[in-house]
């Protein structure tokens, strides 16, 4: 997003006006406008702060605790949260520290979410933009293929893939990302199609701007906003998907963990150790809410349809 926000074209100084006036009529770019709108959205801003806290906690991880994530302690199984032993979130069924495991699980869940979304965004944007730009027969063949894929039981196919090729972490997000690009491709294609016919593109044409420059200056920034919005909304659904797989025992493997895997363990020891469920669930749900609020905020800020 940083690079995206830095694209702020400023108008060339008008001759005949003094410098003060020139400074005050600086053009309001798409991105400056969007940022202003986003900063006014309190839910999204608060979510951004909370998410930043969660992410940095997850990144710091084991450095915050004297315990290791994979170090069983059979003298301290299912221990309630206790600050004297520095098991802030208690321990799990093998006596491993839950605080460290929750943060490690968060790191893996967030990584799968981000990388899965990235895979989906790259495939989806390229596919959608190609179909939209090229048009004609190729477009309809590409869209037909998309429709066929969309009517597949995707989740079952991913589980099938996990069954066949083992439960590798890399495979998880490649598989999840590779099947989640469909909506992205559709959105980007639709946007590209409508942008191609917009007056400002025609105006640029008439003014003699080259095609590549039209694409870079006019089409890409417009599509980028939409892509950013849906990428933000894709991350939580990726996290959810990974948690789902891990919950079913098809995701990450011990001793590594993710929020889904922790929840699975937690729901097994529900009756003896509530904290094993509460803490991972709290982190997961909070993260999902934050991403949703941020995504909504970005959509309100960037979606050209609402202007």
């Amino acid at each position: 997003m940083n690079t995206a926000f830095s694209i702020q074209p400023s108008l060339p100084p008008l001759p005949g006006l003094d410098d003060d006036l020139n400074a005050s009529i600086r053009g309001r770019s798409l991105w400056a406008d969007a940022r202003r709108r986003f900063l006014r959205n309190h839910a999204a801003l608060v979510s951004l702060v909370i998410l930043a806290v969660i992410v940095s906690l997850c990144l710091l991880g084991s450095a915050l605790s004297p315990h290791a994530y994979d170090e069983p302690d059979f003298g301290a199984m299912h221990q309630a949260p206790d600050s004297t032993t520095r098991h802030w979130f208690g321990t799990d069924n093998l006596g491993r520290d839950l605080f460290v495991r929750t943060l490690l699980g968060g790191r893996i869940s967030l990584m799968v979410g981000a990388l899965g979304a990235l895979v989906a965004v790259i495939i989806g944007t390229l596919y959608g933009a190609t179909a939209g730009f090229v048009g004609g027969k190729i477009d309809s063949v590409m869209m037909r293929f998309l429709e066929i894929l969309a009517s597949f039981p995707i989740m079952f196919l991913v589980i099938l893939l996990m069954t066949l090729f083992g439960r590798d972490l890399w495979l998880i997000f490649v598989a999840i990302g590779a099947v989640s690009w469909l909506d992205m491709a559709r959105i980007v294609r639709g946007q590209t199609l409508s942008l191609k016919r917009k007056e400002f593109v025609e105006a640029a044409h008439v003014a003699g701007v080259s095609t590549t420059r039209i694409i870079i200056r006019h089409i890409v920034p417009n599509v980028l906003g939409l892509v950013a919005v849906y990428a933000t909304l894709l991350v939580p659904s990726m996290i959810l998907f990974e948690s789902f797989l891990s919950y079913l025992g098809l995701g990450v493997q011990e001793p590594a963990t993710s929020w889904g895997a922790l929840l699975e363990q937690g729901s097994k020891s529900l009756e003896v150790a509530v904290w094993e469920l509460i803490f991972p669930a709290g982190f997961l749900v909070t993260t999902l809410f934050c991403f949703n609020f941020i995504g909504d905020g970005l959509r309100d800020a960037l979606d050209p349809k609402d202007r």
Partner: protein
Amino acid sequence: MLKFILRRIFLEAIPTLLVLVTVTFFLIRLAPGGPFSSEMNVPPEVKAAIEAKYQLDQPMSVQYLNYLTDLARGDLGPSFKYKDFTVNELVNKAIPVSFKLGIVAFLIALVVGVSAGVAAALRQNTWIDYSVMGVAMIGVVLPNFVLAPMLALIFAVWFKILPAGGWEGGQIQFMVLPVAVLCKHYISVIARITRGSMIEVLGSPFIRTARAKGLPMHYILRRHALKPAMLPVVSYLGPAFVGVITGSVVVETFFGIPGIGQLFINGALNRDYSMVLGLTILIGALMITFNAVVDILYGYIDPRIRIK
């Protein structure tokens, strides 16, 4: 209309199904490690006998054609894991369970979702609207595998008024929690869709006309507003149905319900290839059929769709 239906079935549904069968079949056959590679150190003749039994010794094209002909007769082949059962026998036992669960959840989701959505639309920007939409937001974001253990914790562990799992032939007390978890997401989504389209319909000229005629509000709702407002909900029924089936994976696993979802997961965990293949195709077929039915239904309700 007939042309629309025929095109939807023969040019879209059936080819898609065929592609699905082909892709899944070859994915499984080309995967590293056969289904029996876990049974190490078997003498070669035993291995050959096993492979002959499951026709794994024949060329791929013959296997594929055999599978297709079996499939056309509705035969999903023998289970690789439960050696005395065919996939059909296991699936036949599981289907009624999943369907009972799914249909109850689906109906509840439809009734509650639509009523909540209509209520929110009629009282737009009041506390009713805000609370319906707030709950719907939570319902969409909160995952099944968080809600299920939470409900079990509250109702089974703390209050001890409902069982934490089991099926027992689908007695009502065993169905309450699974159904609640299963329909939560669809209640939320249907409520959101209904609210949105109802607000749009209520603002349209023909409703204003009906009001100007002095018709009572409940009559306008029933007679004029409900049908057009339901169109987006109908088109959501396809994905919702699929969601109920896939959502039941978590619910069935957590509550220990012997349905399709649990069968699929056990198949996946035990690397029971024929089971996973059969169920993927079965669910894919259901999904494709249901989407086609919804499309045709939609074409029936809204004539604009037919001419595309």
